[in-house]
């Protein structure tokens, strides 16, 4: 009989997995979009699947496609992934009171599967009084599976398109990034960081080796964001 901790139960995992299902449907769609984009960027279906299964971060993977997935570009790639996934530092910190009560193995496995959606769900669940960390794990897995499966399916579907350029598929990454950017817009406080990001992107694109314009834009936005912050 293994020691079953009351803070991480099978029932909790199942509950989290089920509660996250409505969100999982949209993750499947996003995964498919990434699959299309990865194919457009020249990745094979297996490569696209590996990337989604291992990196498991939509925004970081989009940035990686724009930079180019090759070892020669590792410095800007790593910078971009660290920058984009830095928000997970916040997520992990916020999950500390909850996951801290579980075994390290359970905590790290749970963190591996944590995504934006499942984290938000979990924080709400914790606020509602649930202390079963299985919920965080289950809801995370519910996001992870459709992301990986969607990627593979999207890549297969896109590979049947005869002339991707005529359909504008080569522009899909940029169009999708535009949509995400507009969706991320919170209001007036975003103007300065956005202008700084524009300037940095153009400057870095002109002056620096390939890929660094992504990092430059992200750093410029973060720097202005920090500078603009007023302690409330």
């Amino acid at each position, binding site marked *: 009989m293994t020691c079953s901790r009351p803070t991480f139960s099978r029932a909790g995992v199942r509950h989290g997995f089920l509660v996250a299902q409505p969100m999982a449907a949209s993750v499947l769609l996003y995964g498919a979009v990434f699959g299309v984009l990865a194919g457009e960027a020249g990745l094979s279906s297996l490569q696209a699947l590996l990337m989604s299964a291992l990196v498991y971060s939509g925004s*970081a993977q989009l940035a990686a496609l724009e930079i180019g997935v090759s070892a020669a570009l590792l410095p800007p790639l790593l910078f971009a992934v660290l920058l984009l996934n830095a928000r997970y530092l*916040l997520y992990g910190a916020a999950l500390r009171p909850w996951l801290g009560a579980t075994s390290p193995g359970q905590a790290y496995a749970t963190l591996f599967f944590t995504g934006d959606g499942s984290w938000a769900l979990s924080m709400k669940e914790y606020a509602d009084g649930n202390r079963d960390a299985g919920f965080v794990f289950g809801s995370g897995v519910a996001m992870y599976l459709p992301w990986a499966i969607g990627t593979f399916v999207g890549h297969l579907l896109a590979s049947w398109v005869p002339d991707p350029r005529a359909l504008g598929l080569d522009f899909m990454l940029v169009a999708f990034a535009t949509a995400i950017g507009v969706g991320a817009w919170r209001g007036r406080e975003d103007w300065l960081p956005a202008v700084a990001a524009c300037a940095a992107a153009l400057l870095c694109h002109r002056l620096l080796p390939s890929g660094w314009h992504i990092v430059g834009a992200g750093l410029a936005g973060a720097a202005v964001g920090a500078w603009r912050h007023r302690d409330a």
Partner: protein
Amino acid sequence: MPDADFLLTVTALAAASFFCRVGGFMMMRFLRITPRIESALKAVPLAVMIGIVMPAAATGRVPELAALVAAGVTMKMRNNELLAALAGLVVIAAGRWMGL
């Protein structure tokens, strides 16, 4: 089969990604995330998306620029990323078909 170059790259990116996932959890023992750091982190996604779009916007011709506007406006109106991206594709496909 993916080649060694790809596997090395993706493994490194996966390690960086996992480091961020567990980093905040581990850091909480000896560090506090200040509102200023939080404010900086929150500005990152928008800034990076701008980074992806800017080179295309700067070198784009009529179809590309019209597609950017279409994607942005559709997102503003419908708040659906996929729909917005598709609107961009429709515009660019139409523009190219007309030979703009």
